[in-house]
């Protein structure tokens, strides 16, 4: 019952905040309290193994809280609270919060759903209401991207439905049960169909076309929840399908898993490259989010205990640092009303806290030791080498190199470089954003230094399906290949930093040079001299990649969609417009039928 009350609570809070729409303050308080109570209710009452089924005469909806749903549920609800706090600064109407709450309800319900039809029902609810949230985006292109997102997620939903019906047809049970005992190729088809919506949600390569636009055009604070939280449903789906629905996949279809891993690696690499080609901060972060989710797909593709723990840990990491980055960019947008890297610059002087947030965010994105990004990347590489496919490891390494490129471009574009005239008196990001940044920084560092805290629950989930091999305790992790003591790595970095700071301090003093006091071959420069080199930051890389950069999956898809419009033309052609022709149709139809049935007459 607890699950049903939780969902009911969320829906009620949504409706109440819609009704209280105009009274801003009251609505915000109610919305915030609702989210917090939901979070704590979730923690206290939802125990794994809780079963509950609701009979609505037509179908009965089954809920079951597993460990993985607990894990993802906590992440999504926490991110929802951070999103909510930050969104109070934007002026949103009541409907915005209603849709937000209904999206969250859909997401949590998907985590709990036990039978496939209700799974589809809640998945569709989540897609519909997040579509409406994206529709409320800020720019005029948000309509086009919202529409693209809807069509893609409904495509995923329908593939899932098709898979469900195939499954029910062959196994006569609607529950999420094992299908590996089925004979023949049908179980591969069911597997692919069931996996499709989650590949769409977690923006795996061929299905990622909606993600950059949707993340860019939705409201900034919502992107925090959208990319951090909702993509976790995709990851949950991977876990669900690859472990619960198809238990002996490693035995029956190892090549499918290998292809899945390669697809994840290609996603990571290609979206990394697209990321550092973008000039818009949010689009860059969107591609970076897709790239990070590519690693998670690789982790699941390898299908060993190490790699799945690495994938889940990286999913958690992604939730933390991706939402941190989006939150900071949202704060910057709130102050400077632009996300275009070319127009920003030098904001470190005006927004130091945001700079620190973004700095640690990009350190985590590129997986540098003291932060949360490193343990999962480290474990992923260990798993890849243990599995033995070195070419895949190199592709994943290439993808993580692109992480350095686009994260530096982001930090340089926004915070470093010349402070533009109009940003002279920009204040620090407001409290909502600052609070979220600080809150997200804590796990980013703590889990980077002592990953054991989170490895324990993750291992507990994966232990049920794969023989546990990863040796770990609070501080360090070891695999047959190598051993890392994370606190020591952090400590060493701190120590050496202190040392070099000491060297820096004993040397002579330095004076604060003014912005125009810059080496420009001794030319005098004044304020509007464009010193900020952010646009076309890696322009020369376009020449390095050359033509392959112009190929895009979108062109192939559009060519395929042409087929539909051709068929449409043909179908439309029947209705000529002349009554006599219609009459001719009727008579010809009967003549034909009579002829066909002639034998039987």
């Amino acid at each position, binding site marked *: 019952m607890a699950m049903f009350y939780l969902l009911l609570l969320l829906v009620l809070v949504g409706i109440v905040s819609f009704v209280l729409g105009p009274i801003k303050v009251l609505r915000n308080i109610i919305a915030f309290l609702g989210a917090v109570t939901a979070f704590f209710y979730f923690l206290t009452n939802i125990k794994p193994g809780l079963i509950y089924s609701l009979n609505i005469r037509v179908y009965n909806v089954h809920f079951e809280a597993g460990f993985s749903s607990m894990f993802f549920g906590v992440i999504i609800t926490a991110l929802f609270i951070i999103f909510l706090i930050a969104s109070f600064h934007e002026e949103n109407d009541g409907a915005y919060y209603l849709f937000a709450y209904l999206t969250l309800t859909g997401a949590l319900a998907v985590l709990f759903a036990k039978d496939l039809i209700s799974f589809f029902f809640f998945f569709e609810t989540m897609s519909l209401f997040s579509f409406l949230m994206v529709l409320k985006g800020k720019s005029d292109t948000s309509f086009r991207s919202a529409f693209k997102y809807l069509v893609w997620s409904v495509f995923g939903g329908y593939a899932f439905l098709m898979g469900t019906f195939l499954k029910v047809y062959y196994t006569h049970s609607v529950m999420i049960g094992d299908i590996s005992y089925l004979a023949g190729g049908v179980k591969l088809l069911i597997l692919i169909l069931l996996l499709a919506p989650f590949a769409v949600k977690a923006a795996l390569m061929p299905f990622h076309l909606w993600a950059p636009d949707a993340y860019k055009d939705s409201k900034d604070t919502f992107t925090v929840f959208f990319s951090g939280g909702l993509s976790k449903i995709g990851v949950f789906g991977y876990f669900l399908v690859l472990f619960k629905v198809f238990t002996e996949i490693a035995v029956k279809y190892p090549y499918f898993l290998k292809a899945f891993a390669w697809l994840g690696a290609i996603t990571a690499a290609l979206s990394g490259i697209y990321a550092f080609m973008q000039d818009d901060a949010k689009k860059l972060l969107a591609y970076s989010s897709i790239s990070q989710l590519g690693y998670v797909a690789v982790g699941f593709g390898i299908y060993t205990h190490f790699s799945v723990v690495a994938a889940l840990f990286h999913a958690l990491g992604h939730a933390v640092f991706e939402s941190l980055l989006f939150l900071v960019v949202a704060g910057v947008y709130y102050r400077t009303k632009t996300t275009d890297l070319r127009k920003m610059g030098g904001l470190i002087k005006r927004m130091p806290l945001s700079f620190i947030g973004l700095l640690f965010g990009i350190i985590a994105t590129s997986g540098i030791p003291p932060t949360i990004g490193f343990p999962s990347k480290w474990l992923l590489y260990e798993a890849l080498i243990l599995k033995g496919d070195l070419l895949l490891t190199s592709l994943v390494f290439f993808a993580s190199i692109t992480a350095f490129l686009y994260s530096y471009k982001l930090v340089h574009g926004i915070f470093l470089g010349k402070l533009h005239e109009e940003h002279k008196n920009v204040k620090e990001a407001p409290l909502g954003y600052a609070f979220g940044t600080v809150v997200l920084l804590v796990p980013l560092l703590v889990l980077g230094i002592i990953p054991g805290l989170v490895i324990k629950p993750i291992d507990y989930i994966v232990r049920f399906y794969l023989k546990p091999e990863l040796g770990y305790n609070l501080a360090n992790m070891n695999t047959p290949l190598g051993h890392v003591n994370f606190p020591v790595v952090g400590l060493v970095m701190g120590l050496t930093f202190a040392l070099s700071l000491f060297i820096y301090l004993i040397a002579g003093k330095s004076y604060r040079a003014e912005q125009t006091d810059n080496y420009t071959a001794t030319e005098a420069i004044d304020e509007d001299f464009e010193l900020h080199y952010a646009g076309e930051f890696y322009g020369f890389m376009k020449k390095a990649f050359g033509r392959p950069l112009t190929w895009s999956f979108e062109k192939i898809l559009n060519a395929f969609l042409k087929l539909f419009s051709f068929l449409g033309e043909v179908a439309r052609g029947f209705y000529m*417009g002349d009554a006599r022709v219609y009459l001719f149709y009727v008579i010809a139809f009967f003549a034909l039928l009579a002829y066909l049935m002639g034998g039987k007459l």
Partner: protein
Amino acid sequence: MNGGLLFYGSSVFLMVMGIFIAITGKHLIKILLGIDLFDVGLNLLIISFGYVNGGTAPIFSKYPHIFKNVVDPVPQALVLTAIVIGVAEMAMGLAIVMKIKEKFGTCNIAKLKELKW
């Protein structure tokens, strides 16, 4: 059922002629007339089904007990209503054609092509 070739032949001929006119007609009223011809042919066909060679109307008050060659009355009743309905159809059709002439200015069906595809 033995109305003989004449009736069946002529009604089928009428129906085929009606359809032919309706399909190839240029003028709206010609099409309507084609449809009407089809109806007439149909009615004739129905009547001829109920025809008994040499049979008389089954009125029992005057000849209470003649049962042999009595014509089947039901198709005739049906045809009555069918004819009335045909009239109603034609009335509505011609009303529409009048309005089309008024609005389109022509009765040529080729011009009635505003709604297509």
